[in-house]
Structures are given as C-alpha cells and as structure tokens.
C-alpha cells in the first residue's frame, strides 16, 4: 500500500457532483494524468415550488457560471484518482438580491475497475467509486437560489456498470448513494418541512444519484446521450412564495448530450462539451446548462501503445 494512496483516502471526503469523469467508463492508464478546465453556464427562469412550476419576477433568470479545474490520475491501470475544484458565480437578472461568487467544494474520488470481462463481442466493465466533497470556503448555503453551493460535506459510494461493443457503442448505468453532513446556518432558528428548529444546524437528507448513458466511443471520439437523476431522500418542499431552503427535497432528471474529441494536434489535448436540460424536478430550477472545456493528458511513463 503506497503512502500517497493512504493519504488521499484519508482526505477523501465526498461527492454530490456527478462529474463525467466520476461516472464515465473511461480509465486513465497507469501514470497518466489528465487535467483541464471546464466552463459551465447554466440558467433557469422557471422553477418548481414543491411540485408547482412557476417563474418569479423578482428573480428573473437565475444564472450560474462556473469554471472547474479537474484532474484524473492513473495510480494503476485499475485505480484512478480524481479531483475537482469549481469557482462558482451566481446572479439574478431581476429583483434586488446580490449574486455570490467564490471557490466552492473540493471533490476527490477513487475509481476502481472491479471487473473487466469479455462477453460475446463486447466488454463488460464494472467500477466501484468512492467520492467525497467538502466546502473549501466559508460560503453560506442559506441564500438560495443565489448560494454558490450547499456547504455540506458528502461521502458517496458508487457502482457503475458498462457494456461496450467492439464497434465502439456502449451503454452505461451508474448509481450512487450520497451521505450529506449537516450544515450550519448563520441564524439560530429556521422553519422547514412543517417544523421549526431552534438550532443553526440543518439535517441534510441523503441523496440517490443516478447516471445513465448510451454512446459511442472509438479512437479520438466520444459522443453520448445521458440522463442524470438526483433524488433527495427526504426534506421539505418550498412553501408558496417562500425562498428555497438548503435541505429541501431537490429532485431532478436531466437529459444531456456529451461530445469529446482528442485533437490530432496538439497530441493529448481533448475538447469536451456537454449540454443538458432539466426534464422534470422538485424544488429546483428548470435549467439549461452548457459546458465546454479542454483536458490535457500527460504521460509520465513512455507508453508504447500511444
């Protein structure tokens, strides 16, 4: 057991983000390090107040932009270490409320290829992933929808299964259970889900996170359609004409299209783009998100296959 491995495990805290590298079927080979920046622009005008869809002229359009650093290191051919840190900025086009910005949560993950098996003309792979996230700054989660995050520390075990044909077509299903720590508010009392609480501590319901995709990946190209599901296992609804609250039952199902392409030149540089839209939800905005960025792979050992 390498000391660095132990070190990283100890610091591994959690993940609510279903970032592609955590959920996808790709693994960095040993001593490869893939890193880059991804920019996301997300906006919504309508949101679900409980199950009731509405807009709000005192919010207008809620805009969240984020730039995220991502790194993925091949510890071995079967074990990848992943890290992500986003800088998030929010604003509303109407109303008086100020936007917020800042560094949000660090996400760390270990991805382990549990099983790899040739079945007929394809390959079945199963991954076990343990990820975690924790806030890197003291931002407030009690200012939704303009907070930059939930400020909860999370731990999330995940299983991913994928079947890929030799032709490049693949299907993937991934599911995670997300444990979320309590969060602290700046106020001594709050009302949610029909009760008043005389404490600044908020119990955060855990979540189920699902990710399902169908795609094609061969040589330098990857294209896929995906569904991202978030189900919060408890929590109250936003009351009529109330603000959202950090522990609300925030559910969503998003449809996305992903494309990634390794440029012929410069070698090892990939461009990545993802567009997604909320099909249905509870206590969340119906957002359209566009993500674009680049990833560069460093090979720390000479690899004859390249």
């Amino acid at each position: 057991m390498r000391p660095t491995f132990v070190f990283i495990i100890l610091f591994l805290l959690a993940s609510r983000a279903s970032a592609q590298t955590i959920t996808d079927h790709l693994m960095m080979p040993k001593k490869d390090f893939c890193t880059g920046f991804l920019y996301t622009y997300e906006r919504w005008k309508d949101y679900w107040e409980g199950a009731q869809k509405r807009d709000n002229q005192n919010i207008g359009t809620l805009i969240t932009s984020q730039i995220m650093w991502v790194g993925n290191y091949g510890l071995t051919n079967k074990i990848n270490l992943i890290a992500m840190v986003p800088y998030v900025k929010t604003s509303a086009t109407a109303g008086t409320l100020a936007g917020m910005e800042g560094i949000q949560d660090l996400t760390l993950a270990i991805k382990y290829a549990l099983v790899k098996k040739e079945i007929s003309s394809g390959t079945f792979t199963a991954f076990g992933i343990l990820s975690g996230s924790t806030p890197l700054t003291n931002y407030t989660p009690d200012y939704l929808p303009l907070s930059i995050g939930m400020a909860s520390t999370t731990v999330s075990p995940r299983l991913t299964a994928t079947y890929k044909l030799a032709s490049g077509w693949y299907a993937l299903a991934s599911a995670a259970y997300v444990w979320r720590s309590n969060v602290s508010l700046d106020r001594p009392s709050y009302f949610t889900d029909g009760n008043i609480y005389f404490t600044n501590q908020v119990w955060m319901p855990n979540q189920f996170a699902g990710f399902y995709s169908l795609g094609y990946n061969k040589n330098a190209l990857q294209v896929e359609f995906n569904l991202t599901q978030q189900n919060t296992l408890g929590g109250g609804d936003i009351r009529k004409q109330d603000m959202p609250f950090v522990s609300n039952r925030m559910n969503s199902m998003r449809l996305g299209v992903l494309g990634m392409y390794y440029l012929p030149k410069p070698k090892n540089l990939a461009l990545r783009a993802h567009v997604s839209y909320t099909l249905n939800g509870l206590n969340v905005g119906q957002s359209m998100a566009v993500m674009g960025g680049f990833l560069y792979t460093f090979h720390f050992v000479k690899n004859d296959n390249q």
Partner: protein
Amino acid sequence: MKKFYIIVFTLMALLAMPFGCKDIGSSENLFPLTPANVDANAGTWKTILLTSANQISIPDPAVTTQQATYLTELEAIKDAQSKLTADQKRTIEYWSVGGVLRWNQLFRKLVAQFNLPPVPNVDGSYPFPDSENPFSNPQFPFANPPYAARAYSYVHVAMYDALLAAWYYKNLYKSSRPDSPYEVDNAIQSLMPKVDLPPYPSEEATMSGAVSEMLKVLFPTAVEEITKLAADQRNAVKWAGKATDTDIAAGLALGKAVATLITANSTGTFTLSGASGAKTINLSLTLASRGRFRTDNLGAAVGSAASWKALADAAIAKGETPWISLEVPPRPPMLPGFGTVKVWGDPGGATPKADNITPVLIIASERPVAPPSTTSEEMKRQLAEVKSYAKNVTRSQISIVHKWADGAGTYTPPGHWNDIAEEYIRDAKFSEVRAARAFALLNMAFHNAAVGCWETKYFYFNPRPGQLDGSIKTTTGVPNFPAYTSGHSTISAAAAAVLSYLFPQNTHYFNDQAKEASNSRLYGAIHFRADIEMGFSHGSKIGSYTVNFAQTDGAN
C-alpha cells in the same frame, strides 16, 4: 493486492456510515422547571387588561366538589398513572419544562408557518388574506412583523392576566384545597417537578385555556394542532399527579374567560365552560364592550388604493421622493395603517383607558424627527455609505445580515427576541407567572415599538436605498415598506431595554445584540444610517415606558 483494495473500499464505505445517522442535536432547549421562587403573592400584582385579578370569579372548590367526588378524581389519577403509555410519559416530560416557555415556542412556530406574503395574481394585483376565508390562497393570516408583534403581545398578555387570576384564587382558596393530589394520596406519584402552590385552579389548565383560545382566533387554520396541544398540557398535569379534574376544569374555564374578555366580538353575558374528566365548571362573564383585540383599529391597517396614493402625494407635497415598492409586480405597502393601532398604555381617547398600563404612551408624540431630505447632500452621503456596504460586504457582515434577517418564513424580529429571552427566563427558573410577566412585558414593548415605527414609516414615507440607486444590490430581501425608521432597530432597542430591566447583569450583552441587529440592516444595504440610528433611540424610548410600568407592577 486486488482483495486488499476491495477491503479498503468496504472499510471506507463503513466509515461513511456515520453520515447516515447525523442527529442535529435535539432542537430541545428546555429542561424540567423547578421555580426558584413560586411567587405565591402574584395574585396581588397589577393586571394588564383585567380590571383586577378577581374580575372573573371562580367558585370555591370546597363548595362545588364534594369530598366523595374529590376522592373519585384522585382514583382517576391513580388509574391513569397505572397505565401510562410511553407517549403519555413523553407528553408529561414535554410540558414539565414550564407551560409559558413551551407555549412561547409553539407560538413562534405558528408565526414562522404563517409568515408568507400572498402570491401576486396574474394581472399583477395582490390578494389580501381574509380571516373569513383562511384556507384559501392566500392563507390567513400573513404573520408579518407588525401583525406578529401585535399577536405576540395579546397572547402573552392573556396568558399573564389569566395566571395572575389563577394565583389570586390559589391563595384565596388555599384552605379549601391546600395540597396537590400527590401530597394528599401517597399512592399518587409526582411525575413533574414539585411546585409548592395550591393546585386550584390549575395554572397549566388556565394557560392552556387562555393561550389556545387566543391562538385559535389568530391562526384559525391551525385549530386542530392548537386544541391538541392545549389538551395535552392539561392531560399532562393530571397524569403527573399535579391536578385533579376540578382543578383543571376551573383553570380551563378561567383561561377561556380571560381570552373571551380580550377577543369577544360582541357584548353581553358569556358562559365559559371548563371540562375535565367528569367535571365541568361554568363561569359567567358580562362584557359591556367588545374585546380590545376587536377594537384596537387593526382593521384599518391595510388601507386602500386611495390611502396608499395619499401617502405618496403627501411626500411629494413636502418635496420628497415617495417610497415605491421594489417588488415586481409592485406590492401594496405592508399595513400602512398599523401606526394607528392601539398601543399598551394607550390613553383610550374619550372611552375609559383600555388597559392598566402607566405611564400613558402617546405614539405620535414620540415620533422621530424627519430624516434627511431625499434631495439633501446628507442623503447623498448616506446613500453612498449604503452603496459601499453593498459593494464591499464581508463574509462576517453577511453572517450578521442573515443572523438577524428574520424575514418571510421566519418567526420575525419579535420572535427572534423571544427566542433570546427564552434562555434567560429558563436559566433564571422563573415561576410560570413570572415567566408570563417577562414575556408579556417584552411583547407589549414590541407591539408598541412596531406601532411607533410604523407610524413613523408612513408619516415620512421615505424610500429605500435601492429605490434611489438601482445599482444597490442587497444580501437580504428588501422589506416592502418605507425605510425610515428601521423596524429591526426599533424592536431590538425596545428588547434590550426590557431584557436589561429583567436581567440587569446581562445589559451589556443585550445592547450589543440589539446594536448588531440594527447594523445588520445597513450591512444588508436595505437601510440608511439615519433609519437605524433614529429607530434605535426611538425603540429605547418606547421600551422605557414598559420598563417604567414594570417597576411599579408589584412584582419586584
């Protein structure tokens, strides 16, 4: 090696398990109450709305309840104690922290639950909550800060007056009924902390009747919840061996009578029944006028489109920029007539004085001087100051803004100060009647501060910073009423005045907290410095009236 990794994975998953059971710590901040002093003479203290502690008469238990009946009531307690369920034991425990503290908490919950503004209509107009149609959209009430301040004061005054009457009769009939059931019969256990007071009438039953009847009027859609809580409180004292059915029935009738005196919407003779087990006690109450709750002018607080326009016209006539709503669509101003609602200590005009509070408080005479003109250099300077807070607000200032925001969906600033007071009242181990006095004083001061502040706001009708400079963004919602003076500052200064009187050793802390609450509105960029400073001194002055009354009410 592979196996090793699988083991590590499993271990990590197990380590994650504690996240599954993360107790937020019970939100319970109260402990079983054993009063430091039972305040046996509280029946002699000054009442607020009752003309005297014996205005409502209750019968001598020796006359209404024969010895045989009394013994049957003791048997009923023994029978109940022999089969207490876990739920019933929890109910006893729940109410053993002191009914006054518990009801105050429950009340704050109701305020938070009902403190949501109406949703605009599709045509951009706004509906108003309707007490005759409380379940509809919008729900009734909208327990906004002035509404809540008034409500908190009425309920706590009702509770206090009812307990003063209960204490009066405990003393009057102490030879008829000197001992609690557990003292009379060794087979009866005492399941609540023992309090050395005559049990008739039961203080818990008295407050259950007074508070629940008040809350039912204020929150008509929560009647089921309120009724259950009140019944629980009475059951708890019976199961705990603290009171018999007669003690409870008399207390309940007394409490209901006090609530009726305050909320009666007609005159005449009322019969108030208190029932417990097989016992019913009827009290008679004759009222020559409707209750103060019905005649304090709240009905005029909403105003009309014409009266809202008149406010703007008056500001324009003075050469000032009138307040406009920053909400979309523009929302009518919150309770513009609230400044004319009767205060505690109001002289009552031509009619007899409505309460026993002295000195008399004339709200309009306490009104702060005019704010800097909207066209003045001073206003420009103050606007620049707000803008600099908006642009450079720090994380610790945001934390102060959010700590004190107490906006929609919360128990409001008066509720926040009740929350603060709770800890001191609990730690001082006040008797029920003294705890009720503390909350009555505090909340009467809040109501007076709210009326004074609203009178000022609508007299000057001054704009918010964000109205004069649209580039000012705020870190909390902009309240939908004029800026001058700050309600938070007025309420908090009044709170500091009353709490400093009650707990003088903590004066420094209360003043610091009040200042912080006041400053939070400037940090949040929703108030000018003039609003918070004038509001603060106004609130201190109004609070001092309540303190002056407290110094002479016989409780010292």
